[in-house]
């Protein structure tokens, strides 16, 4: 089912791209193509997490990455009801509805045989416990090895060495499933390519500071989640440069949507259809940045490839104590001239939601309107359009009162 879904998605996106060649469409074509490729018998398929694994390492091999969370959770975008039916299957065998819908949906898809074959399953200990747990369970079901890349709480010489050591071992495991020796020079090149893409992305991040905002906020957030799938590949830089170009052109031609309020979006953006975008459009609200949608990792040193990739993981805002996350949020606020901050609180996302009050206190100190918007990423049973509308309208009212 997923294979068919992504094959059709790829075809329709390619047709759309022919009509209207936009970089955002190209990113999604890449995503769909990668997922379709994962179903091919001749490919070595490595399940992983695009947004929390240093994908440059996989790019150094001829393997096909597959992200079980993202693959399953694009379904609700098109049919929230079908997603609920699949989640029901997982719940019937004991998955609690208190568990993240992302993982219930992935587990359901796996139980129904929708997922492609896995040769190796890689996950990481951040962002959440649930992702690595699901990885282990799915690995057991398909009789393959699951590896958790363990990312400590703090950056130190020891923690960098520890993570780098794990990455070396993971490279060894990829060698054994792919039959391909790691070419260190190729890995270094992947890191160089990734650095170039990050520089391109920084240009976009700078353009996002312009008001009215020249791009669309939700794709910015999405790109920070699945755009990392392309890390280490030339196409990532090309796509980012295309977006920069498109944005500059819009600015030059004055084709910018009027903007009343600029908000920072924290945590995740729901994949199921919601009224959020519609309300934002109606009220001139733009999401100018997501907390993960910035180059938090900085430039990587290709001469120390494993250590650099380790450091990239360790610098993630969700690693460590809340200070690292707050630092990133505060920096965005300083740079992006914001009118408000929205924390999307998906039902079971304990690692992001547990600090929402604390973040709220910091926003209060900074005198920035802050909204905790509860809902769910994928489960329509835990989403209320009426409540979402009420919360957003009130929040917009608060921002309006301060103009």
């Amino acid at each position: 089912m997923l294979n068919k879904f992504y094959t059709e998605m790829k075809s329709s996106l390619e047709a759309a791209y022919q009509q209207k060649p936009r970089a955002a469409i190209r990113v999604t074509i890449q995503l769909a193509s990668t997922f379709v490729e994962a179903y091919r018998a001749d490919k070595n398929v490595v399940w992983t997490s695009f947004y929390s694994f240093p994908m440059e390492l996989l790019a150094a091999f001829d393997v096909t990455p597959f992200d079980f969370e993202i693959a399953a959770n694009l379904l609700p975008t098109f049919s929230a009801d079908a997603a609920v039916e699949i989640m029901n299957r997982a719940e019937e065998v004991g998955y609690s509805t208190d568990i993240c819908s992302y993982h219930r949906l992935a587990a359901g898809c796996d139980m129904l045989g929708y997922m492609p074959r896995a040769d190796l399953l890689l996950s990481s200990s951040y962002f959440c416990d649930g992702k690595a747990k699901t990885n282990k369970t799915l690995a057991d079901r398909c009789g393959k090895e699951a590896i958790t890349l363990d990312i400590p709480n703090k950056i130190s010489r020891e923690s960098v060495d520890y993570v780098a050591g794990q990455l070396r071992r993971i490279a060894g495991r990829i060698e054994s499933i792919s039959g391909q020796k790691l070419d260190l020079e190729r890995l270094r090149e992947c890191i160089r390519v990734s650095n170039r893409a990050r520089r391109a992305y920084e240009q976009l991040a700078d353009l996002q500071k312009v008001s009215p905002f020249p791009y669309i906020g939700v794709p910015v957030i999405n790109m920070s989640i699945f755009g990392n799938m392309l890390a280490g590949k030339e196409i990532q830089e090309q796509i980012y440069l295309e977006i920069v170009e498109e944005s500059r052109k819009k600015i030059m031609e004055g084709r910018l949507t009027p903007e009343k309020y600029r908000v920072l979006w924290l945590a995740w953006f729901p994949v199921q259809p919601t009224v959020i975008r519609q309300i934002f459009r109606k009220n001139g609200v733009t999401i100018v940045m997501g907390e993960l949608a910035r180059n938090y990792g900085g430039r990587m040193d290709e001469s120390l490839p494993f250590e650099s990739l380790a450091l990239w993981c360790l610098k993630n805002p969700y690693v460590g104590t809340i200070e690292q996350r707050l630092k990133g949020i505060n920096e965005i606020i300083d740079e992006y001239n914001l009118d408000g901050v929205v924390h999307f609180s998906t039902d079971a996302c304990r690692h992001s939601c547990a600090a929402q009050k604390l973040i709220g206190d910091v926003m209060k100190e900074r005198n920035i309107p802050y909204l905790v918007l509860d809902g769910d990423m994928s489960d329509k049973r835990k989403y209320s359009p009426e409540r979402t509308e009420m919360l957003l309208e009130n929040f917009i009212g608060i921002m309006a009162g301060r103009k």
Partner: protein
Amino acid sequence: MSDSKAKMGYFCSLVPTEIIAAAGYEPVWVKGKAEMTAAADARMYPNMCPYIKSLFTDAAEAGGSAFDGLVFARSCDGVRRLYDVWQAYIPSKFTYMLEVPKNADDLAVTYFAAQLRDFASQMGKASGREVTVPTLRKAIKDANAARSKMRELYNRQSASPLPMAGSELFMQGLAILHGDGAKGITATRKKPVAEGAAAGSRKKTRVMVCGNVMSRPDIFQMIEGSGADVPVADVCTGLRFFERIVDEKGDDPFLSLAEAYLGVPRCSRTAAPAETYARIRDNVNRYDVNGVVLTALKFCDQQLYDIPYLLKKLNDDGIPVLFVENDYVFKDKDRIRTRVEAFVEMLES
């Protein structure tokens, strides 16, 4: 440190209490008492583990931590975030976040040993009593001795009739964890084998309790009240805590601690579900168990994600199982009791 009985609290059984003891503190596993957790709901997210919310509420309502210091651990998302809100809202004399790897291979052990050295250094600074190799070795020996006594009692629980009621054994273990070690061990010494509550009775149905953090005997009492025995509680605050023995003769005591604490027995935080199941299966045989009560704290992802796998495996192997989510304080005792009674009745029939 002026008070030699200063208490250092910790929340997770992955914290090596030996280091705390070597620094001159009394290690105390912190039990959450609050049943209503409004203070935590206000500062944290309501859908968090009730143990964590209970801990936070106790401290918030008391206006600060009752301990001389607290050791947090990177054990789960919940404790990581508890550390964040604790730092922000709870006045505390000393806090430390211990880095505990999620893996258990040699890389993780080496890294953990290095973290334990830092932990020991910080503990020593806080107490004013440096943790030296000899003091640490002594603490390891003492902890091993205390654990061995409890382990011996657990070993005897494979006998039938059951030497000691499961609820009683569990509470004795808790006394040790709560820093009342002398009381716990004295009690165990006074309790000869086959003098327990169930001694001499006919062979009863035997139910094993498996889960994570528990600090109340409710579930044991429910099972026992239904006429069955609980030979063993494979929970963080039960058998798993006392099964961990640290190598006393290793060249580097920090490495020995790291190996022991990342080694078996492992909870579902570190173990893959297959390893967790293998352990359940072993204990079913070892303690001649007729059925298993799997219990998990509500919102405990580490445990909840394993439940479907464990239920299927137990069912496939024909081992009767009852899954009960609990809210740590067993507010819904009556509902759980009904299910437990029905389960025991089913086992007996």
